[in-house]
């Protein structure tokens, strides 16, 4: 099986996600981009699992999905609460961590 197209697609998705995280300000979109990166990794995992003929990659992909789901729960909650307090979902507005 030729893995290159799959890996290429995975790399493309990952890059799109990464660029999105870096350049977009809207927290929801940044969040989506993170999901996109995770799923790009999942694609790579599944591809290699198929290519190598064992299930390790697929299991890892399941773990990633579980983590992503948990992350969605926590992340969205944070985003919602930030939005409630400051009426904005821009990540640049939430910069209170700096001194």
């Amino acid at each position, binding site marked *: 099986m030729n893995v290159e197209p799959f890996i290429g697609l995975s790399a493309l998705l990952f890059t799109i996600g990464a660029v999105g995280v*870096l350049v977009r300000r809207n927290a929801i979109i940044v969040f989506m981009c993170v999901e996109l990166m995770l799923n790009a990794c999942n694609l790579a995992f599944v591809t290699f699992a198929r290519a190598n003929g064992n299930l390790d990659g697929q299991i890892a992909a399941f773990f990633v999905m579980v983590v992503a789901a948990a992350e969605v729960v926590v992340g969205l909650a944070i985003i919602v609460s930030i939005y409630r307090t400051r009426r904005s979902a821009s*990540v640049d507005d939430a*910069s209170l*961590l700096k001194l």
Partner: protein
Amino acid sequence: MTSLSTVVLAASEHADVVPVAADGVFSWLWLVVAIPAVSAAILLIGDGAGDHGPLDRFGHLLGTLAAIASFVVGLVAFIALLGQDVAERAITHDLWTWMQVGGFDVTMSVYYDQLAALFVLLITGVGSLIHVYSIGYMADDPRKRRFFGFLNLFIAAMLVLVLAGDYLVLFLGWEGVGLASYLLIGFWQEKRSAAVAAKKAFVVNRVGDLGLALGIMLMFAQFGTTNIHDVGLNVANASQGVATALGLLLLLGACGKSAQVPLQSWLLDAMEGPTPVSALIHAATMVTAGVYLVVRSAAIYDLSEVARTAVVVVGAVTLLYGAWIGCAKDDIKKALAGSTMSQIGYMMLAAGLGPAGYAFAIFHLITHGFFKANMFLGAGSVMHGMNDDVDMRHYGALRTMMPVTFVTFAMGYLAIIGFPGFSGFFSKDKVIEAAFATNFWAGLAALVGAGVTAFYMTRVMIMTFFGEKRWREGVHPHESPKIMTVPLIVLAALSVGGGALLFSSWIVDWLAPVTGEEHHELPVPPIVITAIIVLVVAAGIALAYVLFGRRAIPDTAPQKVSVFTRAGRADLYGDAVNEALFMRPGQYLTRSLVYVDGSGIDGAVNGTAELVGDGARGLRRLQTGFVRTYAAEIFGGALVLVLALLAVNLA
């Protein structure tokens, strides 16, 4: 100077002394020290037990009784010693081990011999008289009890000093008398000058103690013992250099305690203390401890001509130095203090002559103890009647108002100038003779000193008791109470009759086993020397009479005076020299070290801390708080990692 061979011969005599263990009355000798020590403890600890308690009312009696009891024990022991065989007159009594570590073994021991016996009598005898006198002198002082406590402490410490069988025990007494002196000079603490004088006395003495302490260390390093007798035996095997070093170190100690040049500056200031203290500590006993130390260490000095010469030079310089100061002072106590320095200079000079002079040093020390205590107490009696004024320019014509004080003071006066027949005549005559026999210049210094002594003492006498009344208004001179005049009378009698100790050269023979004996032939018959001394003394008296007796004494000290008087009034600039050489550079050093410590050493520590802090503040700028910056940093980091992995794999 004597040839060395006779000296070594004399030194070997010390080896003949074999101390015997104490028994009978001698085993109770420690009581001499213990009685005043316990009394001092009671008087001082009772200090907090509320005012006007029984101790406050009777404390001075307890203190006086303690001194007298100590005298009685000393007297009994002395009589017992007279009854001993000559060979058995050095008695030791080991009380307990003070400290023992490895080869260092110091025993608290009593060493009672002919020399110590004389000192015990002098200290407790004169001490008792001064205690009695103080009952009257300090009658109105609210802290009288404490005063007597300090006096008792002094007596105890001074007795430890002279009874010590070990140099380190001697050092205990040595510092003990220093402490008592400190406490008593500064007894009127609310006077700043008294507090400063007390501190000065202690610190200058400590410089001397440096010498004594190092001397003791050197003894231990050389001989493995600090026992006085054993050191005396072992020093014969030591090299010349060791003997000289020991002699010079002990001399430094002696200079501090006995106010000899160059450590003389504290004694004049010490007159801030109550007058009985000046009489007891700063005239009769403590300041002579240096002479005692030199004589006690005769075995060391016998071996080192250099050290002996140094002692003679110190003595000669101080005797003239003190006399000079005595001529210029208007303060009666300071004039007497200058005289004390000068007389101790005589003793030092005599002690520096070696076996030929030791006995005469002690003889002069004892007679001086009598007549100087007498005069100081007399001065105290005068001050008592003059509302504590010490300026002799405010005295005059007191002989009719204070007859007893006048007569007793006159006895002391005649004794100190060496009027024939009085105690000082014999003792000073012997010192000058011995000095001439050994070294012409030493003898000349002593001779000149005798003339100057006559001059300044006549001046004191005239300004105080003769001439016109120059009393301040409201001052009504009166004779002191009996409790003060009786000790004066006793001391006056001793001043007159003290010369009896030389009767058929008793004191020389008595001390010979301790100090060795040696006689140098004078180039001229002794009677010639005596005649010259009497002439010089007469010249001094005549000059003083011409200058002070024939014309009126100015009421205030004249300012247009010769450079000599000016120098004398300024203590020959001793304080100025100390200030320029030690105090100012010392203060500068201290201040600059405080600065270096704060900004240099501690600055380096704080500087390091600040450097870390600054670095951290710089790094903090990286934390912008923007999520996307952090994300970019993460990606950057991941990228670097990947590239590094690739680089490693490709390479």
